[in-house]
């Protein structure tokens, strides 16, 4: 009843409003053009994604056709015999990214905890900004800095004692075997960890701030310490978004190119040692692409690896975005 009444009122009101809004024919024409432009731009983004996937897949098709699915698990990379397999770079990509996450997450959690609960109010903004500036430093700078500073440091101070201490233990030792060159998978992961640290930390900080103050105050009210409030209230409340933030960091680490290329050693050999050299999809593409002939099977294999990397990072980033949905971040 009341609905039909209000409907009647609306109908009556409409003629009054209409002439004002559609004051001229040209403005409705302008609206159509502007809306069309906006929608075209939106569709362009979808087309862009489709074009990236398609161009990598088409470029990699000769390689996929020649090697089939075994491309993903064979470790050959032999331009002379035209035999190519992606196992080593795929392994390197996954291992460096996961190792980087393992190192970055505790640090990022500590930073987020410090910035939301421990730091004095006036101190939070400058420290938060400084941490975020770590994300602004270009990848090439991390690479150069890693190559000239971290690699010698690892070769001199970190790897020899670890190799001496752990290298002879039967199973674990395999992880720490080999000569201490300073480069290698572990060094690459360390630099990646520093690079993704600000992404994870600032996501965590932002989601920690979404916890309603009432929850935390109730916990403080029954006598919880700051850490207990963090562990029992803040972390359970935000765990989905925290995982989303970690996935975001993982997605970033998977595709990092320049920093890794400088320090990973660039060898296409499957190494069980964390200090051994290796490569990642991004680093092998950056290094080998300029040396590949147009139309060669090698070029196609690199594009195929690019396709694999795109699929992996797309899945990881899509998961991250879904987990972060409620509290989206710029």
């Amino acid at each position, binding site marked *: 009843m009341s609905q039909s009444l209000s409907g009647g009122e609306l109908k009556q009101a409409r003629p009054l409003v209409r002439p004002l809004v559609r004051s001229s024919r040209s403005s409705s024409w302008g609206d159509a053009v502007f809306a069309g432009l906006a929608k075209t*731009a939106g569709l362009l983004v979808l087309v862009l994604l489709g074009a990236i996937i398609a161009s990598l897949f088409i470029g990699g098709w000769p390689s996929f056709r020649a090697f089939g699915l075994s491309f993903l698990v064979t470790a050959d990379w032999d331009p002379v015999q035209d035999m190519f397999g992606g196992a080593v770079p795929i392994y390197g990509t996954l291992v460096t990214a996961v190792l980087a996450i393992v190192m970055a997450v505790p640090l990022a959690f500590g930073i987020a905890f410090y910035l939301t609960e421990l730091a004095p109010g006036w101190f939070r903004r400058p420290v938060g900004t400084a941490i975020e500036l770590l994300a602004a430093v270009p990848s090439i700078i991390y690479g150069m800095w890693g190559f000239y500073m971290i690699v010698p440091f690892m070769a001199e101070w970190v790897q020899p004692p670890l190799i001496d201490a752990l290298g002879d233990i039967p199973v674990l030792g395999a992880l720490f075997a080999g000569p201490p060159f300073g480069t290698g998978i572990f060094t690459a992961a360390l630099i990646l960890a520093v690079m993704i640290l600000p992404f994870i930390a600032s996501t965590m900080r932002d989601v920690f701030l979404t916890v309603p103050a009432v929850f935390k105050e109730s916990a403080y009210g029954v006598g919880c310490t700051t850490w207990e409030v963090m562990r029992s209230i803040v972390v359970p409340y935000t765990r989905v978004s925290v995982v989303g933030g970690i996935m975001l960091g993982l997605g970033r680490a998977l595709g990092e190119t320049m920093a890794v290329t400088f320090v990973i050693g660039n060898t296409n050999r499957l190494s069980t040692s964390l200090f051994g050299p290796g490569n990642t999809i991004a680093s092998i593409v950056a290094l080998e692409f300029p040396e590949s002939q147009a139309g060669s099977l090698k070029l196609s294999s690199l594009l195929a690896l690019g396709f694999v990397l795109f699929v992996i990072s797309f899945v990881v980033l899509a998961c991250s*975005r879904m987990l972060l949905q409620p509290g989206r971040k*710029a």
Partner: protein
Amino acid sequence: MSGVVSAMTGPRRDPAVADRLSRRRRRMNRLVKGLCTGATLVGLVFLGLILGTLLWLGFGGLHWSVFTEATKPPGSHGGLLNAIVGSLIQTLIGTAVGTPVGIMVGTYLSEYAAGTRLGDAVRFVSDVLLSAPSILIGLFVYQVLVSPFGAFSGIAGGLALAVIVVPIVVRTTEDMLRLIPVELREAAVALGAPKWKSIVLVCYPAARDGIATGVLLAVARIAGETAPLLFTSLGNLNWSISLTRPMSSLPVTIYQYAGSAFEDWVQLAWVGALLITLGVLALNIVARVLLRPRR
């Protein structure tokens, strides 16, 4: 005293036990607090180490010739002029192409597609592209623009950077437009303005600072990008500002020089690294200051 209480009420009420527990909890609390403060220090130390290294090794090589001379063969005191100019040109192309597209997409998401499936899809894809590996964007542009025309070119580099700009601008534009109060739009509509005019003449000016922040952050990001330029503009050790030929850029020149065996090239790479880092960090700080009064 405590023994008596314990006998009467059991261990849960025993002050000694309670005291121990409380002391353990407080110790744990102090330990975690200390570790977290330490983690923050580690983060800051890394930033300090990077900046310190750049200043230490880059500042010494900073002469006027860096800005007045093009890159030259090792041993002949070259500069970085062509790299700096090339970076400026490609960053300009990337920003000029990417910004309007990004603003239109952001407008579409905020003003036209709120709650629609297509809008959700566009937002999702844009967010994924925001973090997509930039080297793959280089491969994509190589496949589409370099390989068919058979030449590496500055314009291909610029367009690769534009692909990176779009999602950054989309994100900030949409967020900023959503912050605009509904009353402002209603006021425009009540005056008889069509929707596009209310967006262009009312919403854009109101969101100006936020959108500018997004553009600045995008410029800061692409100014330091190396990977997407490797297969598009390639780099060029000679002076060239032709858009259809390989073009030099600071990051690619740093990449070529840093790995070389010539001392003066490595020195120039450090100078380039210092310049680019200071530029990028300055842009970031300006962007933050610009956004501050709005939040």
